[in-house]
């Protein structure tokens, strides 16, 4: 090989390793800033204490962990069925031309910036909830609704891909036995696409738990565990975004600790999703 070619190959190799470098830097700096405090105060008191007063030495983020999981679950309750039904329609009912229009439309829904969802939530959903259901309007319910709509495209497109990868002869066999379209979907397509659909749900949850700006705008950001659907709450992401601008010293470290916990949760979600998908390939 010519000398020049070797240089070029090395350049590409360097480029390829840059992603690993960035990943390493991100993990390193978040852990480096966040773990000393975690070590000093102890994981247990950070995760189990309820009081968050970082300037007074209380670093309990339990309410935020619980809130993050609550809104994620709430978002899934809305986004999962709606997204799945949409995917079933797209994959099993829609004609080619309808699909050609609907699929980019859904992708557009994913491209709308999260601040816009938050804004629509504040301007339209919050007053409706306040007026008809009570409470301040900034609540678990409102946040779940906004997030549910935001994760819809993720769930739909992954479930759609999973259903499309079910081989055609499976369905044809079912039709040949005299099954209706719904029977085929329920007995053949959905079970065959199960692992892909579950992976879609988990990735949707990952998106919901990582969402920040839309959540800050509609959640109300109160510092306690919400006792009902209409109570305000603060998530892990919201905690970081709300306080980072003015935090110093241990307070700032506490925000990085929040980041470490968030990172751990996301990593668990992603590995579970990966595991579910891999299992299918092995099978």
């Amino acid at each position, binding site marked *: 090989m010519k000398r020049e*070619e070797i240089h*070029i190959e090395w350049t*590409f*190799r360097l*480029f*390829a*390793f840059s*992603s690993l470098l*960035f*990943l390493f*830097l*991100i993990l390193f*700096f*978040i852990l480096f800033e966040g773990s000393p405090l975690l070590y000093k105060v102890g994981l247990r008191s950070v995760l189990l204490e309820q009081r968050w007063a970082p300037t007074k030495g209380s670093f309990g983020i339990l309410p935020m962990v619980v809130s993050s999981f609550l809104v994620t679950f709430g978002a899934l309750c809305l986004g999962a069925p*709606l997204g799945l*039904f*949409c995917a079933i329609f*797209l994959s*099993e*009912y*829609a004609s080619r031309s309808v699909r050609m229009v609907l699929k*980019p*439309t*859904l*992708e*557009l829904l994913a*491209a*709308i*910036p*999260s*601040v*816009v*969802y938050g*804004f*629509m939530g504040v301007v*339209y959903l919050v007053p409706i909830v306040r007026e008809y259901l009570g409470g301040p309007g900034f609540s678990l319910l409102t946040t779940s609704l906004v997030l549910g*709509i935001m994760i*819809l495209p993720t769930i*739909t497109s992954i479930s759609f891909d999973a259903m499309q990868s079910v081989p055609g002869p499976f369905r044809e066999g079912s039709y040949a036995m005299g099954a*209706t*379209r*719904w*029977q085929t979907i329920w007995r053949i397509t959905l079970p065959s696409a199960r692992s892909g659909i579950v992976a879609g749900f988990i990735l949707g949850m990952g998106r919901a738990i*990582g*969402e*920040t*700006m839309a959540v*800050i705008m509609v959640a109300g950001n109160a510092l306690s565990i919400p006792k009902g659907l209409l109570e305000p709450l603060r998530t892990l*992401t919201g905690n*970081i*975004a709300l306080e*980072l*601008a003015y935090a110093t010293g241990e307070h700032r470290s506490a925000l*990085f600790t929040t*980041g470490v916990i*968030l*990172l751990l949760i*996301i*990593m668990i979600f*992603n590995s579970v999703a990966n595991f579910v998908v891999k299992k299918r390939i092995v099978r």
Partner: protein
Amino acid sequence: MRLDPRTTDRLFSIFFRVHALIVVCVLLAILFLIAIKGLPQLSPAFLLQSPKDMGREGGIFPFIVGTFLLVFLSLLLAIPLGVGTAVFLTEYRREGRLTAFIRFGVESLAGIPSILYGLFGFIFFVIRLKMGLSLMAGVLTIMIMVLPTIIRTSEEAIKAVPRQLRLVSHSLGATKWETIVGVVLPKASPGILTGIMLSVGRAVGETAALIFTMGCSLRLPTSLADSGRTLAVHFYILAREGISMEKAYGTAFVLVFAILLVNLLAYYLMHKAMERLS
């Protein structure tokens, strides 16, 4: 009561159609509301003037420029890095432990939420590297953030280029590099462009990662060390601090329809790429 299978089938058919319709209606409602309230705010003055009184009056010109600068510069860095990575993964290496490892890194980067990019950019670029809240810090943070999208779409596009083309090029005496630049990349360009457009959309709409890296100065950034706002950040601040609902709608209109345009372009390119392959 047991329903006749045919009736059940028909009921479910209606059920799924209604759900798809609901989702489309939600999207249309969002676009419609923003258009109807935002369009009246639009004027040459709004687009070309600087903001006055925190954005209560005046326009959004510095933020349009700020958005352009951020997107242009971050992609200027991310495109060679991303496409280069994709070329390395597909043209220089067989699938193996190394490619799996790099791909794992890329997937992990893609899964990190934007607020953590903000946290990282803040501590690393802004504080450790002493860049301060600046265009530079924003550009570098966004570069890392869009890298996975560019790598994945470029990889798909390069993989879809038929093997014969490479063989022909080699048989004519072209080197590997000449084949990549002369044959593979041009053939894969619509697919790569799609990934780039998607990244543009993501960078334009980003807020969480930018507030703590690029900051939110109202002035027009004139150097890499200046802080500045993008449209999305400006919109967020207008809406969250209740500065001006009218201006917020106007900004939202510009923001959303810019992203819409970018996505339509991406879709068109993807369509063209698929046509060319089939």
